[in-house]
């Protein structure tokens, strides 16, 4: 054969027919092939040299990948057969709220009347989009008990940083220069990282033996130089901060603000509003609570809602009602833009569709069933994987494999890997950091009782194997396209592109 390229029509890489590796697009590539078809424009092509001075032209041709459409389709379709997803089964990945994503919302986002609109289209020609954004802002404010919101942040972490900049703008406006932001030791990594980018120093307060913020430790940490506190409630161990009002008072007393990390909003949506708990700034992960698909790692959306006193600082421009029309308006003391355009618009549209279908009643049911599922699982697994804190949890439960580790040397990671052989995605492991051998299960409300039972029995059978054949668990998973991968090797000799690989 002419070239040594890999065959595009061989399917031995799909588990359906084997477990070989799938060639890369570049290994499949043969110069001279192509799939692209373009419009016939009737425009005279001009020689580049007649349009662009020579020094700008790339002397070399950048070769990307050249495939026939058939091989392109074969390749990416096979890749999807090497990928687990919510649509294939339960995905109890704690803190990520991997609930079912309604196909209905995808259809909404696919409407050319929404997806085909240029972001620079004058407001007068995009009234539908502006009304959609205004409506979503109203819904999010109603759900959080806040006064106004920005829809620009592209994800939760972007929302956090935006919130911290709002905090700073608020204090600046009052001529106050505060240096510290408090976070509990159970906080998600994005919290401290955002605090740093917000220009603040992180003060970490330890959790008490109940897995909650230690109020005394907090009081001790508080002072006039504290800009605020970032809390997740329920927190990352899945427990509700019952002293939240005392915490709020304490922080407010020193002039600080309360930031609500909404990653766990699914536990309380429609039941408790952050605003009523005393929070001043709230970000929401629409890709969690409001079921927009996670896209293999993104996109998400992280709108930030604030109380009245912070509304003037929100990023702008914002879509707003102006008389009976909608227009772009920039808040009086806006911190400015945090996104190149208006935020992840199509994600926002999906979230609104989800909210409108559920309404107040539906969202309350979402929270109730998310909490029901998590508590059922926690109780069901108590004997094998005791909860880090033996109390009713909210939408997720953090269990610990310490018993299995002590008795048989089987670690949380082994349990996680073995679960995949049983047909389930693994829970989040080793987070939060304050729990040894943490296994964080978030079943979400959309998994049925039968699925929970099957998940629980799978964990049971793994525990039995831990006693009889722990080695098999260190070797798990075995029924997956690849077995455990050598992460150390990947870091030691970085091969991050085809060109760095020795093929």
């Amino acid at each position: 054969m002419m070239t040594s390229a890999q065959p595009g029509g061989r399917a031995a890489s799909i588990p359906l027919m084997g477990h070989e590796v799938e060639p890369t697009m570049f290994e499949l590539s043969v110069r001279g092939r192509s799939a692209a078809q373009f419009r016939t424009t009737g425009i005279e092509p001009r020689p580049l040299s007649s349009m662009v001075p020579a020094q700008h032209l790339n002397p070399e041709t950048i070769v990307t990948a050249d495939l026939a459409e058939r091989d392109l389709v074969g390749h990416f379709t096979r890749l999807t057969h090497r990928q687990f997803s919510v649509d294939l089964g339960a995905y109890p990945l704690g803190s990520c709220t991997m609930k079912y994503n309604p196909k209905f919302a995808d259809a909404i986002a696919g409407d050319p009347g929404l997806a085909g609109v240029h972001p620079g289209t004058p407001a007068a020609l995009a009234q539908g989009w502006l009304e959609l954004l205004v409506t979503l802002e109203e819904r999010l404010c109603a759900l959080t008990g806040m006064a106004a919101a920005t829809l620009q942040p592209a994800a939760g972490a972007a929302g956090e940083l935006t919130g911290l900049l709002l905090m700073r703008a608020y204090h600046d406006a009052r001529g106050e220069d505060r240096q510290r932001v408090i976070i509990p030791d159970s906080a998600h990594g994005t919290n401290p990282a955002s605090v740093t980018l917000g220009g603040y120093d992180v003060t970490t307060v330890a959790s008490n033996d109940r897995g909650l913020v230690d109020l005394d430790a907090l009081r001790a940490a508080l002072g006039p130089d504290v800009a605020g506190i970032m809390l997740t409630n329920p927190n990352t161990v899945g427990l509700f901060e019952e002293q939240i009002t005392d915490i709020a008072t304490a922080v407010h007393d020193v002039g600080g603000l309360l930031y609500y990390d909404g990653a766990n909003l699914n536990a309380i949506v429609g039941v408790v509003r952050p605003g009523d708990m005393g929070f001043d700034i709230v970000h929401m992960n629409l890709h969690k609570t409001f079921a927009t698909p996670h896209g293999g790692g993104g996109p998400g959306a992280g709108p930030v809602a604030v109380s009245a006193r912070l509304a003037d600082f929100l990023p702008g421009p914002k879509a707003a009602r102006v008389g009976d029309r909608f227009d772009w308006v920039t808040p009086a003391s806006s911190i400015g833009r945090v996104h190149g355009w208006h935020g992840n618009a199509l994600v926002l549209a999906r979230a609104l569709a989800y909210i409108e279908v559920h309404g107040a009643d539906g969202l309350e049911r979402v929270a109730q069933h998310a909490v029901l599922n998590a508590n059922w699982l926690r109780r069901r697994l108590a004997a094998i994987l005791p909860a880090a804190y033996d109390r009713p949890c909210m939408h997720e439960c953090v269990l610990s494999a310490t018993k299995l580790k002590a008795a048989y040397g089987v670690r949380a990671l082994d349990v996680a890997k073995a679960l995949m052989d049983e047909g389930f995605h693994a829970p989040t492991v080793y987070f939060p950091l304050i729990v040894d051998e943490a296994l964080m299960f978030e079943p979400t409300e959309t998994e049925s009782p039968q699925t929970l039972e099957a998940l629980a029995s799978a964990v049971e059978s793994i525990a039995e194997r831990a006693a009889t054949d722990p080695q098999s668990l260190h070797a798990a998973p075995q029924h997956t396209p690849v077995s455990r991968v050598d992460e150390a090797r990947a870091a030691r000799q970085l091969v991050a592109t085809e060109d760095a690989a020795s093929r």
Partner: protein
Amino acid sequence: MADYLAHTPDEVSSMLAFLGLASLDELFAHIPAAVRLASGSALPAGRSEPDVAATFARYSLANRAAGSLVCFAGGGAYDHEVPAVVRSLASRSEFVTAYTPYQPEVAQGVLQALFEYQTMVSRLSGLPIANASLYDGATALVEGLNLAAAATGRSTMVISSGVHPHWRAVVRTFARGTGHRVVEVPLVDGLTDWSAIDVDEAAAVVVSYPNYLGVLEAMDVAAERAKDLGALFVMGGDPVAAGVLRTAGQWGADVFVGEGQAFGTALSFGGPYLGLFAVAREHVRRLPGRIVGETLDTNGRRAFVTTLRAREQDIRREKATSNVCTNQTLMAITAAIQLGWLGTDGLRHVGMASASGAHALADALADVSGVQLLCAAPFLREFAVRLPRRADEVIAAMAEDGVLAGLAVSSLTGGDDPSVAGDTSRVLLVAVTERRTAEELHRYVEAMRKAVR
């Protein structure tokens, strides 16, 4: 009253019984009554999917999409060909409903697609290391500046005002937190006038190539300037131009940032888009976001995994290189698929056909009395013209003729700006893609004649 729950009332009761509870409410019993909603949230009641669809159809009809307005607007968002094959592959639910590949054994699909995406970005930027995506071009630039600050230990950012006004605005916003000093360099006749500022050291020198007015900057001068200031040379690039112009790597840039929407993502009213990010080898440990690497599994089979995780927020926390967690993976996968569809020649075609159309339109507009090119400098597929009346009025007028004439520069800058001498309100930014036909160009010119008559 609709939802997506499976539980029957019987099942709920038995689960509650298992927990020794009598009602769903009791699950929240430990939450202080004071903070609980007495009467549910103030939201309308739920409606069925078809009922909600009717509302969204109304929104949709109240917009003028690219289908109903021939799109000559650009400014970082372009109306490129997105074939059915790319849409159908990118919408496969295994890609769409998965999350960050924390468990590589069941995530080889996403991981390999990202590895292929990184390779594409690396080749287009001419830099060896690319990450697995950031939010968008604007925030990618912010990450680039943070990297430069960390690499140089400095905090002054010298930014050409040829960088997209929204990107500069975002940079200014985040500088409130990082405390970076942002120095914007004016343009003269569309080209950055580096002499106009006096700074003697900087963390980064940022130039956009082409710049937001479509002009091809003098990159050697910019690179020179970066060297003088001991700064990292950060290039914001139009990835479509990469098919024909010199790459960031060839111009000696340390960091490449770009907006990847052009590769398979619909206009989407501005998002979700795709932040492209590539760096020179020595900055790999300061890379923001995720990166996928190749390795082996315990059976010696090739496998892919996210690597160099020690930089990331979940491990490094307040010392992380960035706070980014959820990124734009699906758009990155889409870009990889689209680039595979385009192929080497297709990518060049997009650049050249867009350029041919842009130059044809620019020539034709030159004959419209009252309309003149904003600057004489060379451009590729986008250019600015000065009009005899307000650009936003012209856009509104031309929309009547079914054309989205472009973007009013003042709508991007929000007023006067160092990128344009004098009044910006009459400056219109026009982009042409490979999808525009001769007939559409003709219609554009006629509509413009009417609008400025």
